[in-house]
C-alpha cells in the first residue's frame, strides 16, 4: 500500500496529467529533491521557487486568476505565518469582487508535531486555516483520503488548504483501503515512483494506471464506530484516537472516532448523528488550545445539541505554549498523546450526568 506522501504524489501526477494542473511549486519542490518529504518527486510541472513564501502564495493566486490550476507548497506551515494577508486575499477575492473572480488554487503544507521538529517544524495550522473565510480546509489521515481529497481540492473552484499531517506522511495505508490503480506490492510501487538516492538526473517515474477518486470536501468518515463517546478529530490524531479507542474496548468503552477530513466546510450532519448516538463528545487536535477549532466545534455543539449531552464536551489540544520544545519530554507534554486521549474518553464515558 502507498504511503500518504506517495498518495499525494500520485494525486498530483493525476492533477498535472489529466486535471489541468500547470504548476506545482515551492521551495525545493522541483528536481533534484522533489520536496523535503518527497511529495513532488518526478512530477513534470514541479519547480523550485525562490525562498520567499509571499512570492509563492502571490504566484499561486495570480496563476489561479489566470485560469490555471496551481498547487503551491509552503515547505512547513510554520513558515506560512508571513503570508496570512495573502491567504486572506485568496479567500476574499471571489466575495470582494461580487462573484467576478474565483481563485482555484491549492495550497499544501505539512503540519503538526511528532517528528521532534522543535519550535519550528511542529506548528499546527488548523486553527489559523479555519479563520480564513472563503477557504476550504482539508486534512487527510489515510493515504486513500489523501489521494481523493487532493483530487477534489484540485478541481474545486475555490482556494483549498491541504494540510499534510507530517507524522503520517510515511505511514502506509490499510490493505482494505487502496488507491484505485496502485499496485498491490509496496516494493513495486516504490521502484516505480520513488526517486533513487544519488544522481537522479536520468531518472523518470513510471506511474501506475491510476483511476480518479474524489473524496468530497465536507464529508467526514467514521474511522472507528462506537456508541459511548464521540471523538471529533483529524490528521495525526485520528490513528492515535483509534488506537486509544481500541485499547478501551477492553474496558467496555466503545468510542466512535470521527475523522472530519474537511475542517471547512465541516460535516455537521455526521457530527450531529454521532453526538445524538453517544451524547458525549471529545475534540482532539494539536493546535494551541486558546481560540482553537475544537472550541468552535464545542461551541456549536453546545448551541445546537446541548440537551443531547450527558457530559460537558471536552477538548484535548496543544498547550498554550510559545513553542514545542525539541526534547522528547517537551514535545510529548505539549501536544495530545494517546494516553491523554484515553483518559479523556474514560472520563467522558464514566461521567454521571
Amino acid at each position, binding site marked *: 500500500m502507498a504511503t500518504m506522501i506517495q498518495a499525494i504524489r500520485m494525486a498530483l501526477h493525476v492533477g498535472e496529467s489529466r486535471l489541468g494542473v500547470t*504548476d506545482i511549486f515551492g521551495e525545493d519542490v522541483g528536481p533534484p529533491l522533489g520536496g523535503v518529504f518527497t511529495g513532488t518527486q518526478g512530477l513534470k510541472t514541479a519547480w523550485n521557487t525562490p525562498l520567499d513564501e*509571499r512570492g509563492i502564495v502571490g504566484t499561486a493566486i495570480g496563476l489561479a486568476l489566470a485560469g490555471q490550476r496551481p498547487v503551491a507548497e509552503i515547505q512547513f506551515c510554520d513558515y506560512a505565518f508571513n503570508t496570512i494577508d495573502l491567504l486572506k486575499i485568496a479567500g476574499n477575492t471571489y466575495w470582494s469582487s*461580487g462573484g467576478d473572480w*474565483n481563485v482555484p488554487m491549492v495550497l499544501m503544507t505539512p503540519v503538526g508535531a511528532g517528528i521532534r521538529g522543535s519550535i519550528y517544524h511542529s506548528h499546527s495550522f488548523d486553527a489559523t486555516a479555519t479563520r480564513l473565510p472563503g477557504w476550504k480546509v482539508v486534512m487527510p489521515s489515510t493515504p486513500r483520503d489523501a489521494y481523493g481529497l487532493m483530487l477534489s481540492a484540485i478541481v474545486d473552484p475555490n482556494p483549498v488548504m491541504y494540510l499534510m499531517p507530517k507524522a503520517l506522511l510515511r505511514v502506509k495505508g490499510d490493505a482494505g483501503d487502496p488507491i484505485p490503480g496502485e499496485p498491490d506490492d509496496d516494493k513495486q510501487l516504490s521502484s516505480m515512483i520513488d526517486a533513487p538516492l544519488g544522481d537522479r538526473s536520468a531518472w523518470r517515474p513510471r506511474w501506475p494506471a491510476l483511476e480518479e477518486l474524489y473524496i468530497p470536501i465536507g464529508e467526514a468518515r467514521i474511522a472507528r464506530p462506537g456508541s459511548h463517546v464521540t471523538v471529533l478529530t483529524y490528521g495525526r490524531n485520528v490513528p492515535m484516537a483509534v488506537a486509544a479507542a481500541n485499547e478501551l474496548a477492553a474496558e467496555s468503552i466503545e468510542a466512535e472516532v470521527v475523522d472530519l477530513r474537511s475542517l471547512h466546510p465541516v460535516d455537521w450532519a455526521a457530527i450531529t448523528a454521532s453526538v445524538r448516538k453517544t451524547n458525549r463528545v471529545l475534540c482532539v487536535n494539536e493546535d494551541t488550545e486558546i481560540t482553537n477549532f475544537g472550541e468552535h466545534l464545542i461551541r456549536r455543539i453546545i448551541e445546537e445539541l446541548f440537551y443531547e449531552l450527558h457530559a460537558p464536551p471536552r477538548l484535548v489540544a496543544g498547550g498554550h505554549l510559545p513553542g514545542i520544545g525539541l526534547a522528547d519530554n517537551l514535545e510529548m507534554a505539549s501536544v495530545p498523546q494517546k494516553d491523554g486521549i484515553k483518559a479523556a474518553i474514560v472520563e467522558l464515558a464514566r461521567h454521571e450526568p
Partner: protein
Amino acid sequence: MSVTATRPTSVAAAPSGRLSPELCVQIYDLMLRARVLEDRLITMYKQGDGFFWIGGPGEEAFSVPLGLLVDKGQGLDHDYLHLHYRCGGTLLAMGADPVNSLRQMRNAATDPYSRGRNFAGHYSVRAWNVVPVTSPIAIQFAIALGTARAQRAGTGAKGITIVQGGDAGTAEGDFASALIWATRRGEELPLLMIVCNNRYGISTPYAGQHGYDQIADRGKAFGMQTAVIDGNDPETSYTALRHAIDYVRTERRPYLLEAMVSRLRGHSSASGANLVKGELDCLERFERVLEDRNLMSRAGMDELRERYTVELAEAHKRVRSEPHPAPSSAWDHVFADKDLVRGEA
C-alpha cells in the same frame, strides 16, 4: 507642485516627437472625463453619498495613456492589470462606464465591481483582465507574478502583465519579491512594473524614507530595463508606456517604469479631499499645450467640461435611487460553484 523644482534631474524630458493631434485630443478628452468623474465622486462624498473617497486626480496624464495602450480582453492573450486605487483614468480609457464608479461610491447593489462591498476606485473586470483592486498596499506585486508566469516566454501567450502601485508602497517586501521573481535568469517574466511616485505615502514625504534618488534605481541591480518619466505629461507617458509595453511584449522580460505624478486632492477623503496647493495639474498644463498647438480652444474645453459635469450630475441623481445591497446579500459569493476564471459560465 512644484514638480520642476523637486523633480530629480534624471527624469526624462518629454521626447521631441509629439503625438498626433487626434491622439492628443482623444487623451485630453479622457483625462477630462476622468477628472470630472473624480470631482463627482468627491462631491458625492461631501454630500454624504458614500463613506470614503480615494482616487486619482493628478494621475490622469499617466493613467489615461495606460488605458489606451493596454491590450484589452480576457485571458492569457490579453494584458492583465493589477492596479491600485488611483487608476480611474485607466479604466475610463479602456471604456468603463463612469456611472459604475458612482455606483461603487454609493455602495449600491448595482455596483458591478464589488456589489456595494468595497471603496470607490476598487475596480474588478474579469472580461478585461482587470484583477480586483484591493486595499493592502503592494500585495498586487506578489500576485502579478502569477498571471505573468502564466504568460511567460514559451507558453505562447501574447498578453503581458502590468502591475502598478505608489511610491511609499515600494518599501513593502512584495515589491522586492516582484523584482526577484521577475528577473530569475532563464525564467524572466513579461511583467511591466509601474510606480506612480507622488512623493507621499498619506502624510509621509518621500524624502527621508528612501536611500536612492529614484525607485527605478532598484531595478537596475536586477538588470532590468528602467525609466523615470514625467507622468504629468501625457505625451511623455504615452511614448514611454508604448516603449515599455512593446519591450515586455516582445522580449517577454520585465520593465520598471517610474512616473512622477501629482496628488491634487491629497491622499483621500480622510485628509479632506480638498485641492492641495503647489501640486502641478497635468490637465491644466495639457490644456495650455492644446491651446498653444491650436488643437482645442479654451471655450471648447470649457464646454466639454461643462457637458461631462452635467452628465455625471444627472447620473448621480439616477444612481441615488438605486438600492443598497440587502443585508442577506453579505452571504452571497462566499464560495464559487463555477470555475469562472477557467471559462465556466
